[in-house]
């Protein structure tokens, strides 16, 4: 089987007069059709920027994208505008964190979906609305007919996100990019949306890249996890192995510091310090300043990727060392 997504050495710089922010520095990964990959990382780690770079949605004047992106065999960075537009919303689509701001506030949700369907399928607006109705049933929006004419602000948070998913699935994409789609939702609604997405992914057989900062969400939905730190993928692997046996000190620290039924009378384990300033990255491994295992050799350069087990890639000089014990 050929990979659906191949990203190689992707870098994104945001250039302003005052600074040059290196949001993504050399991200590489491949994805098979039908696979669900979670990009896991904290705010500012470059996961959302990577998503947007995949669809070339970053402001062209202020951002410089280098490296290569191939989706379904096509070179995304070399596409002309017309080809790019045919890809967007059609074979590749996207869901956003805040469905309130992701919909046009003055157009009804039904019309917004119909517009996209009509555009890509070349059908009438009426047929587009019919398709929107079917999609609303697919994502289990109750009283779908009535909700088609609702404006975004008239829907509850959970229904808005379901409508957003309906919009993203309207042209049966091969690849769905989901940028923290459940972060803004309440706990009881988040699990509903996660289960819905998992079911739809299996039924439609599409690939999903799911961006999140929440390990629990990753555990619920991912086949594979890529952990990002300071604009780099520091570790990838199958979700089970990675959560049970994290290799990179950052992944281990993140797992340890996530509050989940730890004993109450003990301090939580923490990663000291704060993520680096993306304008002034450390010379070597960007995690070295916070890492309990770091030594002088870590400042020499970015550690090369090593593979301690099949399907796993880690960028750390200490991976051959025994199990990382976190302070």
């Amino acid at each position: 089987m050929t990979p659906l997504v191949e990203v190689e050495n992707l870098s994104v710089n945001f250039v302003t007069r005052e600074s040059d922010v290196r949001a993504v520095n050399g991200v590489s990964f491949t994805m098979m059709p039908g696979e669900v990959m979670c990009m896991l990382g904290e705010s500012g780690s470059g996961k959302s920027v990577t998503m947007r770079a995949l669809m070339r949605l970053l402001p062209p004047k202020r951002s410089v994208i280098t490296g290569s992106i191939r989706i379904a065999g096509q070179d995304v960075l070399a596409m002309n505008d017309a080809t790019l537009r045919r890809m967007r919303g059609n074979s590749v689509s996207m869901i956003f964190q805040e469905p309130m701001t992701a919909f046009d506030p003055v157009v009804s949700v039904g019309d917004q979906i119909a517009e996209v369907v009509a555009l890509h399928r070349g059908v009438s607006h009426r047929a587009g609305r019919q398709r929107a109705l079917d999609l609303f049933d697919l994502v289990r929006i109750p009283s779908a007919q009535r909700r088609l004419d609702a404006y975004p602000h008239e829907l509850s948070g959970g229904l808005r996100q379901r409508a957003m998913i309906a919009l993203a699935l309207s042209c049966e994409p091969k690849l769905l990019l989901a940028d923290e789609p459940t972060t803004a939702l309440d706990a009881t609604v988040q699990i509903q949306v996660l289960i819905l997405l998992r079911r739809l992914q299996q039924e439609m057989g599409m690939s999903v890249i799911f961006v999140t900062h929440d390990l629990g969400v990753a555990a619920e939905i991912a086949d594979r996890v890529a952990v990002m730190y300071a604009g780099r993928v520091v570790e990838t692997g199958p979700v089970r192995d990675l959560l049970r046996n994290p290799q990179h000190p950052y992944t281990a620290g993140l797992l340890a510091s996530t509050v989940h039924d730890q004993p109450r009378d003990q301090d939580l384990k923490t990663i000291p310090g704060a993520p680096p300033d993306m304008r002034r990255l450390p010379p070597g491994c960007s995690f070295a300043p916070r890492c309990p295992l770091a030594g002088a050799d870590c400042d020499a350069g970015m550690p090369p990727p090593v593979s301690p087990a099949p399907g796993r890639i880690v960028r750390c000089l200490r991976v051959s060392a025994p199990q990382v014990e976190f302070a």
Partner: protein
Amino acid sequence: MSTAVSDAARPGAPTGATELALPKQRGYWGNVGYRLRYDPVTLCFGGLLLLIILAAIFSPWLAPFDPYQESIIRRLKPPGFQGRYWLGTDELGRDMLSRLLYGGRITLTMGIVPVFIATLIGGGLGVVAGFAGGVVNMIIMRVTDVFYAFPSVLLAVAISGAMGGGAGNGMIALTLVFIPPLCRVAETATSQVRNLDFVDAARATGAPLRLVLWHHVLGNVLGPVLIYASSLVSVGIILASGLSFLGLGVKPPEPDWGLMLNALRQAIYVSPLVCAMPGIAILLTSISMNMVSDGLRSAMDVRS
């Protein structure tokens, strides 16, 4: 010290170094000044504005002639006349340059004083309305709405027209015109700031209201109000000249720019260039004022 959590993982780690290397701390106004220094357009117009204001202040020393000295023989002479009347003479033979310099004093005063007074009154009312909320807010804002329901030129003309014109009445009229918009801007800014958590946090200390207002609200409201007021100065100058142009402002023979424009209108067929001059003076002043105000606005925008 048991509670302190170290910010650096290991001694001598680069974390500490990057924190020390942060840009110099300038504070808010320092930052505004820093940004303004790199904004050549605003600096240029700011310089021009300063020049105009200085010229107005020092007009008695700068003006080559008495601005009231009439002469029948040298009426409406073109610029450069006899090498001494650089900008020519007006319909009564008075030196244009001297009159424009002196006129700056009157016109600028007519434009700036009402804005200043209106900022104090309207801004104050707005802050009170915004912070107090409830009935006080309703009373102040409803009265404001009534005055807002007049087009500004019309209100200025109506009040000064009914009061019988004159520079003083003109300024009163303009002050009344400017109070409602300033009140609105101050009210909006105050009620926005009032709802921010840091004001709640300050109230939650149990500190007296006046201290919360003074330290946490005013400082954050002042910026938007001052920016707006500075943009009103240009409107003030145009409106004040307009009133004089209609015969409702400054009375002859005072050398006000608007009044000069009106008087010279009769002479457009004879000496069009001279006729255009007072207008150019008004235009240069108001455009520099607007540009400086815009520059300030973007320099004071914390987000960018």
